């Protein structure tokens, strides 16, 4: 056949290239389920570090959970932390190396249940780090158990009849909580389920890393994500379910910018 002599380089011409592997992602295949948001967020982090030229000055902290192996995919120095302790580990790094860029990457169980104390106090001390918080309302890696962010009535393997808030409490909006602390400088909530949302997340991510140079406090980005495997849905169904159910409870947008709370738009009067 004629095209057998055509090399990949000739097919993938630079002028035709609209999407390529980010240089700071390793060649290791992602361990995440198809449709999961982790890979997109990893890519955004890698792009920001690459574009800022700070690979040699960046240390990441991976949590316990699905993203425990984040260090296999990001081509940067990383430390794996005990469950919930990433903000304390990041504090130890940043205090010793105040001019380095330090970030944590944590899920909802890690950040808002077992690690609540570390999260609150790192935010309250205003550690000059970036916390990236993936909220999919479920414990993914352990098999879909109830998380602190599981919605009322939402089914999980430990709430098979739905989360009963009378018994199990309400979902924790920890992002709104940390925004009230004087130590946080930038707090925002985004998603990565559409190209537009991914671009917004990247813009916020860039700001969160740039903020570390200012030494004015902690930057905190929540990314509401799906967990189609844990939610027992197809990726498309999961994204739709997330828009319909997660977003009303966890609304998108900036919560605190440059140390100031963002004023909510007033509801139009009836």
């Amino acid at each position: 056949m004629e095209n057998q002599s055509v090399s990949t380089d000739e097919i993938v011409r630079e002028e035709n290239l609209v999407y390529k592997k980010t240089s700071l992602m390793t060649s290791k295949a992602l361990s995440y389920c198809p449709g999961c948001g982790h890979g997109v967020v990893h890519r955004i982090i890698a792009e920001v570090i690459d574009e800022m030229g700070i690979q040699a000055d960046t240390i990441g902290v991976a949590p316990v959970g699905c993203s425990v192996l984040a260090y296999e995919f990001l081509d940067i120095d990383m430390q794996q932390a005990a469950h919930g302790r990433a903000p304390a580990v990041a504090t130890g790094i940043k205090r010793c190396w105040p001019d380095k860029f330090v970030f944590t990457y944590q899920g909802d169980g890690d950040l808002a249940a077992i690690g609540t104390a570390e999260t609150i106090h790192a935010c309250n001390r205003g550690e000059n780090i970036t916390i990236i918080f993936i909220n999919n309302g479920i414990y993914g890696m352990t098999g879909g158990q109830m998380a602190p962010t599981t919605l009322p009535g939402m089914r999980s393997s430990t709430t098979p009849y739905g989360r009963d808030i009378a018994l199990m409490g309400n979902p924790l909006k920890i992002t709104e909580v940390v925004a009230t602390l004087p130590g946080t400088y930038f707090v925002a909530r985004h998603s990565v389920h559409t190209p537009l949302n991914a671009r917004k997340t990247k813009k916020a991510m860039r700001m969160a890393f740039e903020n570390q140079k200012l030494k004015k406090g902690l930057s905190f980005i929540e990314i509401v994500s799906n967990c189609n495997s844990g939610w027992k849905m197809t990726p498309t169904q999961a994204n739709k379910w997330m828009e319909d159910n997660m977003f009303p409870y966890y609304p998108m947008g900036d919560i605190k910018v440059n140390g100031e709370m963002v004023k909510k738009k007033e509801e139009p009067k009836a």
Partner: protein
Amino acid sequence: MGQVKLMKGNEAFAEAVIRAGCDAYFGYPITPQSEVLEYLAAQEPHKRTGMVLLQAESEVAAINMVYGAAGTGKRALTSSSSPGISLKQEGISYMVGAELPCLILNVMRGGPGLGTIGPSQADYFQATKGGGHGDYKVIVLAPSSVQEMADFAGLGFELAFKYRNPVLILSDGAIGQMMEKVELSEQQPRTTSFDQSWVTTGKSPDRERNIITSLNLDPSKMELHNRKLQAKFAGMQENEVRYERIDCDDAEYLIVAYGSCARICQKTVKLARQKGIKVGLLRPITLFPYPTKIIQEMTGKIKGILTVELSAGQMVEDVRLAADGKVKVAFYGRMGGTTPAPNEVLGVLEQQFLNS
């Protein structure tokens, strides 16, 4: 000769860590070791040497801050007392697994639970047999004087970095709180170069990225990692055993005691010798690795061993393993923050070995 001062054990340790060129301290207040954090705060070590000092929100956070700092090659430490050390066990297990060096001070108090603030040695099992989850060991140094509280700061960091493993100084409320003359070493410079083969200070173009982790999902690789760790612990047993022998040359009876208990038993040896009873004292300085060989050697020459501890009997198990049934090993202990008097120990020794 270095500077000589009259200091509390906890303060001498705190001063010594600054002088040892320590980079970072993370801790949480608990009696009877709070003077460590208080002394450091008063000294403003960030002004003296650039050392980081941070009061953490919990002992759990403190040990994980140490983990983060240690992962970048820094000389980091934490200190606490028994209940707080229990909280740190998860972090210590992770640090051994991830092969991170650090220094931990436990100024033991009586337990179990909230217990009491008086001196105790009831954390021996926790300190020497692992403490947290998994197959692991930390080097355990047991100071019996304010001087050793100071000396073990530098030695502790040296051993921690030699093996890339946590080192635990197992002190107690008596050693931490008592005041003695102490000779302090000269100020050592803080480290400015870091071993780029493992530290996470940012991946520069001239090296591979470094990862600090204790995770390996492949069981066969995890077993290999465990074998590597075990080889390291065997190396410690081969090279790092430390002990002190007092009046052992002609001894017919041997007292084995460590830390503050060894100080009490030193007086017991004197009282016994005044009565013509030939008693010697073996004081283990490292509790892991344990001075098993020297006890084995001495077993053939003596008529009996009395192990004395501020516990219900923990180290005595290691003494009995070493003696291997070849000689009677008796035990005497006091618990819950109480300490025996020297003549009380002598009475037990006479009752166990001479009145029968």
